[in-house]
């Protein structure tokens, strides 16, 4: 009858378990980390006014419908990208130097994503894509992994870039951040990886 004793022991065990698990504490809320809520691209050129391109998802709800994007562009449908805001027009035939700053403002203290990208420069790359036949701009990388990691690699990162404008016109300037792309690559098409950020800015060159 050892078995019965054992059984009794186990049932007592269950009761203990059951009584212990009756805590009514609320689970802690989770704020999405690793999120990019704010993007600031500053374009500078000697003698020209600075142009900033910004995107901000104030609610910190990055994985959801973006209210700004929707209200700004009525004809947008879901499958088109997120639209940022541009402070002013670019001048034609000027070379600007660009710098990108990314923040996660949904957590406190604010998380500096730019610094994280610098630390993992070999795992990140920005891509720049002018869209539309009426837009004449070219973006070239102005940094390499070596600038951040001193790893001897001349693969581009894109936190710094230069933007050269051509004739007057307007169109979308799309900035994409890929995490763990194939490096080196010949461009977006063969980079692969995971898109961490994909924002278009409607720019005017005039």
């Amino acid at each position, binding site marked *: 009858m050892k078995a019965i004793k054992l*059984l009794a022991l186990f*049932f007592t065990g269950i009761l203990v378990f059951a009584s212990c698990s009756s805590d009514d504490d609320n689970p802690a809320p*989770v704020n999405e980390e690793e999120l990019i809520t704010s*993007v600031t691209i500053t374009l500078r050129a000697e003698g020209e006014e600075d142009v900033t391109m910004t995107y901000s998802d104030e609610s910190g709800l990055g994985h*959801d419908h973006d209210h700004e994007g929707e209200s700004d562009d009525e004809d947008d449908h879901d499958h088109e990208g997120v639209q940022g805001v541009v402070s002013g027009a670019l001048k034609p035939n000027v070379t600007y130097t660009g710098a990108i700053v990314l923040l996660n403002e949904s957590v406190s203290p604010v998380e500096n994503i730019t610094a*994280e990208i610098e630390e993992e420069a070999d795992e990140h790359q920005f891509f720049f894509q002018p869209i539309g036949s009426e837009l004449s701009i070219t973006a070239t990388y102005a940094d390499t992994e070596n600038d951040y990691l001193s790893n001897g690699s001349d693969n581009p990162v894109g936190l710094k870039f230069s933007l050269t404008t051509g004739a007057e016109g307007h169109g979308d300037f799309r900035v994409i951040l890929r995490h763990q792309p194939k490096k080196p690559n010949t461009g977006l098409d063969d980079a692969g990886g995971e898109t961490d950020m994909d924002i278009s800015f409607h720019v005017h060159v005039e």
Partner: protein
Amino acid sequence: MKFPFPLILLLFVFGNTGILCSQNCQSGFSGTVVDFHDGTPLENAMVHILGTDNITVTDIDGKFAMQNICPGSYEVEISHESCTTRIMRIEISGNTEQRITLEHHLEELKEVVVQGDRNHPVTNSGTEQVLHEQIIEKYSSASLGDALKEISGVSSLNTGSAIVKPVIQGLHSSRIITMNNGVRLQDQEWGMEHAPNLDLNAAGSLTVVKGAAALQYGGDAIGGVIIADPMRIPVKDTLYGKTLVSGATNGRGGSLMSSLTKSYENGWYWSAQGTAKRFGDFKAPDYSLTNTGYAQQAFTTSFGLNKFTHGFDVYYSFYRNEIGILRSSHIGSQEDLLNAINSRQPYVVEPFSYDINAPKQEVTHHLAKIRYFQRFEKLGRLNVQYDFQHNNRQEYDIRRGSLKGVPAMDMELTTHTLSSDFKFDAHSGRKINAGILLRYQNNIPDPETGVRRLIPDYKRYEAGAFASISQYLNDALVLDAGIRYDYSHLDAKKYYRKNRWEQQGYDEDFGDIITEDYGDQWLTNPVFDFHNISGTAGLHYKTGNNDILFNYALASRAPNPAELFSDGLHHSAAAIELGDLRMNPEVSHKFSFSFSRNNEKLHVTVVPYANYIHDFILLEPSGGELTIRGAFPVWQYKQVNARFFGIDFDFSYHLSENWTYTNKSAYVHARDVTRDRPLIDIPPANTSNRITFSKPEWKNLQLTVRSDYVFRQNEYPDNNFDLRVVENGAYVDREVDISTPPGAYHLLGVDASASFPFVKKSEITFGLSANNIFNTSYRDYLNKLRFFSDDLGRNFQLQIKINY
């Protein structure tokens, strides 16, 4: 060694009785031998007073009588051809009368404590199939889902090659109950990329009940029940075990499995078994599948007592795996998905490695149980069981900065179950089984992940009761019927982002469950009560070599936590998954019919079925959501009415003494009746042919050629959508084809095995097999990674088994 011993004993015995008989030996011993269960007299039972030459046999009324016995205390042995032999100590003086009970259900006795190599079915009229040890061993280095595909009508839903989820007649996940040694597995089975946390090497047999006819396990098995039973442990003094080593070329890894069992004549036993598996990156015909390696460790141990009238067992199993998920399958947006689909080959192809990096999943599962049984004379058997399970699932994503190495999902699911059932088997033509169940489950997602919980904290209380009967109507016809009631109470604490809350329309329907305001999130307390009735009825008609079965099963399944609450980014699925608080239970009506004919040369089974499911819950792509990452795929749980028609076919024919041909085929046709369109993720028709040559005289030589043909699934819903992308500096709309199934494929394989005597009484078996011999490039419709890469290429495997 063994031979002389009884002789000595015999001499000693005769010498001894001679002395005893010279005393006053006038006593008599008489009585009746009856069946323990129903008290039926047993004819031809042998009664032997050990140590004397007093032996007699019972008459037609089970009566026996012996005279001229010297008074004293004797060991009496009572044996019957279909019963367990029993030895009792009996004081004989004067005229001693004794009623002796014998266990008449030998097979069942063995099944009680350690259910073994199952010889008799789980249900009377449900369609079911069993895989025995030999086949399980063949899949030693693979997974449960791979082995189960040996059964017609069972396919698998894969995420790569290591995460294999069984699909029974087109249904999977929460619609399938997995029983591991009598314990219902609670391992977050709802997810499409959550494979059963169970080491198939611990199983001595695997039974699949296709449908909900096995009510004793649950009322919600709309798809079916998978029952993994450990090896049967014999009630005798013995020590045995086996070791199995496998090595495979694809993945450059293998597995090691070892087991040892000790049992005693008096019913005590213990057993231990362990498995370790390790694989590196697998390979498709044309490229390496980077980050698809995996590691698995599993361990089980048990001990117990298997007595005639009572017994118990204590069982513990540990299972842990770490599975890498194809690096290139990790995407961030719909555009990434489009690129992956169009590129037709993975972006990241690195040289072979054993490293398992993110994305990956790590799962640990503990299972402990204690069971006690008691037999009651002329009544039946009582079982009482308590089991405990703890499941920890961690999914790692490719992350940045300080979150690297922190899982994106980390959930702990704890389950306690107390169950009891009573099997009334005293009446020879009727068996009744009734039982109750109480269960408590608690899910705790770790908030430290920095990712909003996909599944919330919840507590679930369940209570169930069932009763079933099987009754012989005449010698050939058995009727069965059963009913079950399940109550489940779900109490969750869930955060909803306010905009999601409104978008889902919850502000109107569920305003009263909000408990706290956290700025942009509501804390809510959804509470659900579900009452589910399920039932089954059927007939089994057996005549000569034919078996005809008909079964109707009504099954009800309460929506699982994923279907109700999912809300957020499922990293390993690279999609936002949305549940719905308004989900109703699924109700299925399944009619199955089975005809089988078995004789010496031919075995054939045909199983047509129809399954009507009301409020069938499915997860479907429903467009995208705009995020900073671009448009993100959204998958939403929906309910429709569904209809499944299908047929499973098994055929085997002995062409000659050494040659056997077998075929198994399955087809299922499933439709969403509500929207009149096909259902997603339904296995395509498939057929397997095998020719086996076996010659026991030649070291048990077995040679098999396998041909597996999987048709293209032509019935699929169109979930394609247009995506605006940039090509050559301009916006264009491109269709993202996530619907079109891949083409048909044919795989050829061979197996060879032979056994040789090994040191002492052990035996060594060598097995060599080759899969996908022609290195065919193919993709499977039910593999979630089919968008990203081809399936596995050629593989050679060597297996060495030592039985001792």
